[in-house]
């Protein structure tokens, strides 16, 4: 259990995040945690809740608000649930910050990330530097940008294409690349292969890539953002590919989120991002383990 001093730091961080978005005319929303159907994702194991599931992310409902309620800037701080995820950087229930902005792409969103994290770092008593995981990282703008393909060239023994062909992309990323990212400045790792961005828009110049990025600070992955895919037909095809993967893993019937797919027809160009609030707290509070920044850990309940 977190002591009162820890609770205060955590509360101040969440209040600073909220203040940043309210200051930029974002509308705070709260969408249901229990959903009858989720976005099909082979690598997330949902927690069942009666005949519903607990959300693995608030993406479905938030995008429907953009498409159907006419919202243009929304944010939410909420709990997400992913079964069996437990480690120094993972909890099966964690706090997510998710925000969306219409008429915006992933590059503009990267700039907003810089501003937001600089601002909440300042409120948390950091000037322009954070010490995380034994490294001193400067938050000074602009942050570094590195394409996934270049990251493989710089740090990995194989190319991105080879890693995909040999089905070792995740293993190589974890072992060789992630520990090298964001050691002196935060890094945007961007332009992921299309296989790894089911909800992201294709890059115009290269349809084998999607406009997706991740933020890394001191080797810690903090956020995942992209230019949203708003093509209903392409989205449906990508979901069907994912459902095939889920079936191969032994799950029986997987439904597609039909209302979400239908709503995509009304969506305009949008960029959105999900950021792990507990991970951000780890960086700003200089914690080695996620256990040190959350109110309770599951083992404590």
């Amino acid at each position: 259990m977190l002591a009162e001093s820890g609770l205060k730091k955590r509360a101040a961080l969440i209040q600073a995040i909220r203040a940043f978005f309210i200051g930029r005319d974002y509308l705070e929303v709260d969408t249901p945690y229990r959903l009858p159907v989720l976005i099909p994702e082979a690598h997330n194991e949902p927690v069942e809740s009666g005949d519903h599931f607990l959300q693995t992310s608030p993406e479905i409902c938030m995008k429907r608000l953009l498409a159907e309620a006419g919202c243009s800037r929304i944010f939410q701080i909420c709990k997400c649930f992913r079964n069996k995820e437990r480690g120094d950087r993972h909890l099966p229930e964690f706090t997510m910050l998710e925000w969306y902005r219409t008429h915006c792409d992933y590059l503009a969103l990267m700039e907003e990330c810089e501003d937001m994290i600089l601002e909440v770092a300042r409120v948390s008593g950091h000037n322009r530097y954070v010490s995380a995981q034994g490294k001193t990282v400067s938050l000074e703008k602009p942050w570094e940008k590195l394409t996934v393909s270049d990251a493989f060239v710089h740090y990995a023994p194989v190319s991105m294409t080879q890693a995909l062909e040999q089905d070792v992309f995740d293993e190589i990323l974890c072992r060789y690349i992630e520990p090298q990212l964001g050691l002196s400045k935060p890094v945007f790792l961007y332009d992921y292969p299309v296989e790894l961005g089911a909800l992201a828009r294709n890059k115009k110049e290269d349809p084998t890539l999607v406009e997706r990025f991740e933020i890394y600070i001191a080797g810690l992955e903090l956020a995942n953002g992209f230019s949203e895919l708003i093509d209903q037909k392409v989205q449906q095809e990508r979901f069907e590919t994912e459902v095939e993967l889920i079936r191969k893993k032994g799950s029986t019937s997987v439904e597609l989120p039909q209302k979400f797919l239908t709503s995509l027809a009304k969506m305009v160009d949008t960029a959105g991002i999900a950021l792990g609030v507990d991970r951000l707290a780890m960086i700003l509070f200089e914690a080695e383990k996620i256990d040190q920044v959350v109110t309770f850990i599951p083992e404590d309940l």
Partner: protein
Amino acid sequence: MYSASDLRKGLKIQIDNEPYIVVDFQFSKPGKGQALYRTKLKNMITGNQFDRTFRSNDKFEKAPLEERTMQYLYSQGEEFHFMDTKNYEQIVIMREQMGDDVNFLIDNMEVQVLLFNSNPIGVTLPNFVNLTVTRADPWAKGDTSGSDSKPVTVETGYVLQVPPFIEEGDKIQIDTRTGYYMTRVKE
């Protein structure tokens, strides 16, 4: 059967018919990627260590290990003979498997023997053992050469560094995990 999500430090698993213990464990999951279970494994027979990453659909057998309390009887050449204190069954462990533990074995000592598929693969001695010093150079009183320890030999033939006041015939306590001198034992 274990699955990858059961992995944790200290878990003993069987891979290719050999027992391994997980000595280090890290859960990873790159964004939108799959869960990876990164481990450092130690082969419980050879002691070799290596890194291995598992995916969530990987499965393992539980290592068929059993620990039994046994009494050390005697050695003959390269063979060390032990007896199960419950059923009086006798087993033989080769010197090679005993490693440094031979330095601390005395007759009738109770030890824990680890068996894999009923074959002994390791011995755990009590943490501390009292052994008699069989050879020690006398302590030259007033020796100002600056040395604050000297080598002695104990009854098993093991040689270790002790404080200068230890004499032949003294009983000393040794930590079997490090092989270091702990204290002189008063009879």
